[in-house]
């Protein structure tokens, strides 16, 4: 075939990979329909919404700074630490308290459970012997997956940990795989180290991944959230060097912070690397506005609180009041335990945020704008029974 003839042949239709023949046939029809529409309508710009972080960056950072200074980013952590200090717990007891608290994620319930189980690693048989009482205690919404069978969850966890009578059993279980050099490197983390483990895998990141994989395989883990929560508690309460190098959204580790970031920046992307970048931008915006929160564990809380603030569903001290309402609503809590909890709260928070001092018993609705679906949106299920 000569060149002139080849030019006369009709061109084959463009093929879009992955599209079926039927779907391809729809394209010309859709184009024809578009051409029938008036041009002005087609060129009309789409609705432009300014993302909150661009318009209200200073305001949001100021609010997060206030929440952080009030110890309200995660108010349970300082109280757990203070309780450990008040009771004079050693490392093993602290670790056990952390595990029990993480099972319920409800501080008064954890205190009652600790009374039933003892303040050291309990045996499987002992846990199952008090199972009815343990299973009746309320859990928070984050732990709804084990609601009603916390005892079975704890028994399975203890079985994974091993012989409870062995000395320092929990320490051996939790510190598995950490060399002294790794610990030192985490604590002495400088700028060069930061770049090293954010850009490429390093021993620190490898250890974090090892920790995560190990904990995710335990029974009753609802996704990766509890792994992060346990690591956070072990770090802040016991002082173990489990430090998340980022929010791990690039490996789809957590969904809630990702959803909150999409909301804040008006950019919805399922690509984890992009969402990680948004998290970094959020952290930078806090730093620019003199809110020096470095840890990703707290940044995750801050992201969520920022969205709640935009929705007018949070005020400074909300989490502290929520804890008080849980204390007041748990009948199993004995008077001395309640007094101990209130004493720990007094040591951790400023008096102006304490309801027991200023005469309120829970979340203050008067500080939030009235709304029709108020009771649905504001109150999280404290007892999910």
């Amino acid at each position: 075939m000569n060149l002139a003839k080849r030019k006369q042949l009709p061109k084959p239709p463009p093929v879009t990979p992955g599209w079926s023949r039927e779907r391809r046939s729809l394209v010309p029809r859709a184009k024809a329909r578009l051409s029938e529409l008036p041009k002005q309508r087609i060129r009309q710009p789409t609705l432009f919404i300014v993302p909150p972080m661009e318009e209200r960056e200073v305001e949001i950072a100021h609010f997060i700074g206030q929440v952080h200074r009030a110890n309200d980013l995660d108010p349970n952590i300082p109280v757990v630490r203070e309780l450990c200090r008040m009771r004079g717990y050693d490392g093993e007891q602290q670790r056990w308290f952390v595990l029990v608290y993480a099972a319920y994620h409800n501080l008064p319930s954890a205190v009652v459970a600790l009374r039933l189980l003892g303040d050291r690693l309990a045996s499987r048989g002992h846990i199952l012997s008090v199972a009815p009482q343990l299973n009746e205690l309320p859990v928070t919404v984050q732990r709804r997956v084990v609601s009603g069978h916390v005892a079975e969850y704890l028994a399975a966890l203890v079985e994974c940990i091993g012989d409870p009578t062995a000395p320092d059993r929990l320490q051996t279980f939790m510190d598995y795989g950490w060399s002294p050099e790794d610990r030192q490197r985490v604590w002495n983390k400088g700028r060069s180290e930061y770049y090293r483990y954010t850009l490429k895998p390093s021993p620190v990141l490898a250890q974090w991944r090892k920790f995560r994989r190990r904990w995710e395989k335990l029974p009753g883990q609802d996704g990766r959230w509890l792994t992060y929560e346990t690591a956070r508690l072990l770090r802040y309460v016991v002082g173990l060097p489990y430090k998340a190098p980022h929010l791990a959204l690039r490996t789809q580790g957590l969904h809630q912070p990702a959803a909150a970031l999409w909301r804040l920046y008006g950019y919805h992307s399922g690509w984890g690397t992009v969402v990680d970048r948004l998290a970094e931008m959020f952290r930078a915006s806090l730093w620019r506005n003199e809110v020096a929160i470095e840890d990703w564990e707290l940044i995750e809380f801050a992201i969520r609180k920022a969205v709640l603030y935009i929705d007018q569903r949070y005020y400074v001290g909300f989490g502290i009041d929520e804890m008080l309402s849980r204390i007041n609503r748990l009948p199993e809590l004995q008077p001395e335990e309640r007094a101990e909890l209130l004493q720990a709260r007094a040591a951790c928070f400023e008096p102006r945020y304490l309801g027991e001092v200023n005469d309120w018993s829970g979340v203050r609705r008067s500080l939030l704008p009235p709304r029709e679906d108020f009771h649905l949106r504001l109150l999280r299920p404290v007892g999910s029974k």
Partner: protein
Amino acid sequence: MRNLFYLIGVPGAGKSTIFQRALKDIPVISEPRPFLHCVYPGGVQLGGLRESFSGTDTLPMNVQPNVLHWLSTTTCANIVAEGDRLANGQFFDAVVAQGWRLTVASLELPASIAATRRESRRSYQNPSWVRGRGTKVTNLVRAYVRPEWRMNALDPIDLLAKRLGDHPAFKGLPVESRQA
């Protein structure tokens, strides 16, 4: 009060090295927009970070209007910078007019030692251009640098870094890695 600290000096004086030492233990986040800058807790360093020709040398030649506009709108209270790109009288005057408390520091050392340092890092710049930088720095020192901020580049690097770290613009806020 908003603080802006700027370090000037001839090529090879050690500006970037001292900056890196002063901000050694502070984590930073690199932000590409509206121009490249590094955010650290409580402040911002203009320009990017790299092994050689760091700081404002990483910025394009026409960046000055963008930086001045950003400085007039930012809520950040502490800015630090080093390098040749923005070191000029027009920039410094505009910064002062915007209400920033400007501190210009200079690193001074003999020309022969600076030349040796440049050779050691393999930066073979045009000699007449280098002389021009020297003249520019000398003029800026006369106009903007207070005597206490004229620093000898031959002093120990830790001493110089500590001197910079004591300035309010570098202090920012202490990183609160744990809850109180």
